[in-house]
C-alpha cells in the first residue's frame, strides 16, 4: 500500500511538472506575446530603457532553459506573481476567491450525488420500467443540454418573470450576498443560501441525470455478476442483494467517476459564476482573460490542474481501499 501510494504521488508530481511546462510553453515560448507582457502590464509607449529594466528585473534576458527552471520553481512554490489589475499577489487573492467556488462546487456535487444516486438505484432495480426509461432519457438529455442554458432559462423565469408577474424577486440574479451584507452571522448565512440557491439548483438539474445514468449502468453491470446469482440463490431478499451486495461493489467506479468529473465541474462552475456574478475563481479567471491579467491566468490554470490531479490521487487511493483486488498495488 505504501509503495503504491508513493508511486501515485510521484506520478502526480510528474504530471504537475508537465502541466507547469505546458504553461511555460503556452504563455512564454509559442505565445504571440513578448515575455515581458506576461510579467507586467506594458503599454505601447514604454521607453526602451524601462523595458530593458523590466527584462532585467524578471530575468528575461537569461537563456530559455534558465528561465524555464525559474518558471517551474515559481509555479511549484505558488509564486505566480502579482495581478495586473488588483496589484495583489495572485496566491493571496486566490485564497480570498476560493470560498465562493468551494461552496458552489461542494454543495452542487453533494446535492447531485444525493439526488442522482437513489434515482439510478431505483432505475436499475426496476429495469425496463418507466422509471428506468425516464432515467435513461434524463441522462441522455444532460449530454445535449448546455448547463448555462438551463441557468439562463431558470434566471429568466424564476427571477425576471417572477418579478414582473408577481412583483417578488424569488431569486437574486447576481452576487453571493446582498449589498450591504447583513451583519448578523445567521442572517448572513441565510442571505448567502438565498443567493446561491438558483446556481445550485440549476447545476443539480443539469447534472443529476447523467449521474443517475452512471449509477444505473454500473449497478446493472454489477447485477449480472455471479456473486449476485449466489446471493439470490441463498434466498436473500432483493433489497439486501441490491444494497449489501451489488451497491457495495459499485462504489469504486463511482468514486473514479467523481474524480474524473472534477475538471468538467470546474468548467460548469466557471460559467455559473460568470452568469450569477459569484466572486469565485472561475469568474476571476474570466475577468483576468478580458483584462489580459496573465499572472492570474497562469496561476489559476496551474491551480485547476493541481485540484484535478489531487482529486484523481484521492480517487485512486479510495479505489484501493474500497476494492480489495487493488490493495496489493497491482493495477487491474
Amino acid at each position: 500500500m505504501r509503495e503504491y501510494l508513493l508511486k501515485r504521488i510521484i506520478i502526480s508530481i510528474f504530471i504537475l511538472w508537465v502541466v507547469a511546462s505546458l504553461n511555460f510553453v503556452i504563455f512564454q515560448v509559442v505565445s504571440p506575446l513578448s515575455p515581458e507582457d506576461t510579467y507586467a502590464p506594458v503599454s505601447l509607449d514604454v521607453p526602451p530603457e524601462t523595458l530593458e529594466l523590466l527584462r532585467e528585473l524578471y530575468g528575461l534576458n537569461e537563456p530559455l532553459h534558465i528561465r524555464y527552471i525559474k518558471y517551474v520553481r515559481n509555479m511549484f512554490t505558488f509564486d505566480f506573481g502579482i495581478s495586473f489589475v488588483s496589484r495583489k499577489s495572485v496566491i493571496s487573492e486566490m485564497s480570498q476567491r476560493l470560498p465562493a467556488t468551494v461552496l458552489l462546487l461542494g454543495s452542487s456535487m453533494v446535492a447531485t450525488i444525493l439526488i442522482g444516486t437513489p434515482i439510478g438505484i431505483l432505475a436499475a432495480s426496476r429495469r425496463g420500467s418507466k422509471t428506468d426509461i425516464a432515467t435513461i432519457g434524463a441522462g441522455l438529455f444532460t449530454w445535449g443540454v448546455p448547463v448555462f442554458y438551463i441557468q439562463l432559462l431558470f434566471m429568466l423565469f424564476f427571477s425576471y418573470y417572477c418579478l414582473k408577474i408577481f412583483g417578488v424577486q424569488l431569486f437574486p440574479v447576481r452576487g453571493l450576498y446582498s449589498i450591504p451584507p447583513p451583519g448578523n452571522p445567521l442572517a448572513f448565512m441565510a442571505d448567502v443560501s438565498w443567493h446561491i440557491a438558483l446556481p445550485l439548483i440549476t447545476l443539480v438539474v443539469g447534472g443529476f441525470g447523467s449521474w443517475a445514468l452512471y449509477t444505473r449502468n454500473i449497478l446493472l453491470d454489477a447485477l449480472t455478476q455471479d456473486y449476485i446469482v449466489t446471493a439470490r440463490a441463498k434466498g436473500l431478499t432483493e433489497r439486501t442483494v441490491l444494497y449489501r451486495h451489488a451497491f457495495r461493489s459499485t462504489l469504486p467506479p463511482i468514486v473514479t467517476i467523481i474524480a474524473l468529473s472534477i475538471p468538467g465541474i470546474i468548467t460548469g462552475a466557471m460559467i455559473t459564476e460568470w452568469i450569477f456574478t459569484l466572486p469565485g475563481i472561475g469568474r476571476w479567471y474570466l475577468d483576468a482573460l478580458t483584462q489580459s491579467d496573465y499572472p492570474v491566468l497562469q496561476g489559476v490554470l496551474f491551480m485547476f490542474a493541481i485540484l484535478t490531479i489531487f482529486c484523481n490521487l484521492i480517487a485512486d487511493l479510495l479505489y484501493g481501499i474500497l476494492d480489495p483486488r487493488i490493495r496489493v498495488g497491482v493495477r487491474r
Partner: protein
Amino acid sequence: MASIFSKDKRIIYIRRIQEFWFEYRSKRIGMAGLALIIIYVLVAVFAPFLTPYNPVTQPRLAQATAMPEWVTVFPQYSDYGKTQRENLNWNVKKGSEFVEGWGTSVEIRYEGGNRLAQVELSSQFSYNQMAPNEFFAKFRYEIENIRDAECSIALSLIPPEANSSYIFWKSETLNADKSQDVTTDSKDPVFIKRLGFALQENVGNIIFSQKGDYTFIVLIQFRPLSNDAMAEVIIENSQIVLLGRVHGILGTDYLAKDIWSHLVWGSRISLSVGLLAALVGTVIGIFVGVVSGYLGGLVDEVLMRTVDILLCLPLLPLLLALVHLYGRNVYYIVLFIGIFGWQGLARVIRSQTLSIRETPYIESARASGGSGFYIMQKHIVPNIIPVAFASMVLAVPSAILFEASLSFLGFGDPRVVTWGMMLQHAFGFGGFSQLAWWWIVPPGLAIIGLCLAFVFVGHAFDEIVNPRLRRRR
C-alpha cells in the same frame, strides 16, 4: 489504399453498410436523431433561401428587441404594428409658381428678382397602429446654381387633429451650392432636444400617439440679396420609417437585427465546428490508440501518460486562454477542441487494438512479413472504424457545446454569427431585463436539438457496434 476501390472489396463494404443500415433502421431513437440531423443540415445548406436577410449586413428592420410578428394574435399585443415605410409624395401647397414637377422628387426654381418667396410642400400618410417606439424620417436636398440669394429649408410634422406642429429639422441659412442627406432619428438626443422633449421621454410614443392622417410639411424660404437672385432646390428620397414593435418570425435583437436569420445562419457554424472538431479529435484518437496498442512498450507508456495528463487539464479554461492568446478565430477553435478532445477515444481504441493484435490473422500477417504500418492500416484500422465512428458521433455534441460555451463567454469568432453568441448578447445587452424570450429561448433550443440529435444517433450506433450493450437490451 487503392485496393479499397477494387471490386470485391467494394462489394464487401457495400454489404456491410447495408447490414448496418438494416440494423440501424430498427432503432427508433436513432432514426429520430438522423431525421433531426438531416433537417439541420438542410437548414444550414439552404440558409440563404430560408431568410431574406444577411445576418451581418442587414438594415435596421424594426425597433430594437421587437417581438415576433405572430404575437399579434394574442389580444394584449393585437395593436402592435409592423415596420411601416412611407415614401413621401410631395404636393404643393404654397408657391406653386416656383415648382416645376412634383411627386417623389420636387424641383423648385427661384428666379425671384427682389422679392421674398415661400414654397410649402406637404405629404400625407396614415398611421393606424399603436405608437412606435422608434422612427426615423429622412430626405435629401440639393441646392444648385444659387446666386445672390439665401434660402432655408425646414421639415415639420403635423399630427392629426392638431394645430401645432413638430419641427423635425431646420437648416441654417444656406447661400452656397450644397447637397445633404438629412436623417432625423428618434434615438438621436439632438433631435429629441430640438423637439423640446426630455432625453428619457419616448418621442415616438408621444408624436404618433394618435391614429389617423399625419402631414409632413417642407417649407423652403428664399431671400434675395440683389435684383439678380436665383436658386434651384431639389427635394428627393423623402421617407418616414415607423419601426415596428413586431418583426418577422422571431423578432429582433438589441441592434434591431433579425433573430430568425441569425438562428438559421448559426446552424452552419455549429454543424461545421462540431463535425470538424470531432473529426480532428477522432483522427488523433485513432492514431494514438492504434499506435499505442499495437506497438506497446515505451511508446504505449508515453502515449498513455500523455492521455492521463490531458485528462487532468481543465479543458474550458485552457481553451479560453488559447483562444485569448492566439485570436478569436473559428478555425483555431475547431483545432483546439479537436486537439484536446481525443483522450477517451484513444483509450477505447487502444484496448480494442490490444485484443485485435492477439488474433491469429494478425499473427499470420506478421509471419508473412507484413510491416507494422501495413498491419495497422490494413488490418487494425478497418476493424476499429465502427467503434471510432460511434465515438465520433458522440464527440460532436460535446464539441458543439464547447463552441457554444466559448461564444457565450464572449470568446467566439466575432466575424460569424453563432448560437452561443446570440445568448451572450441576450445576456449582456438587456435581453433579460426586457424579458425578450424570443431572443433568449430559440438559440438554446437550437443547440439542444442539434446536440440531442447526435446523442441519439451515437447512442443507436453504440448499441450496434458495442456488443456488450446489445446483449443488455
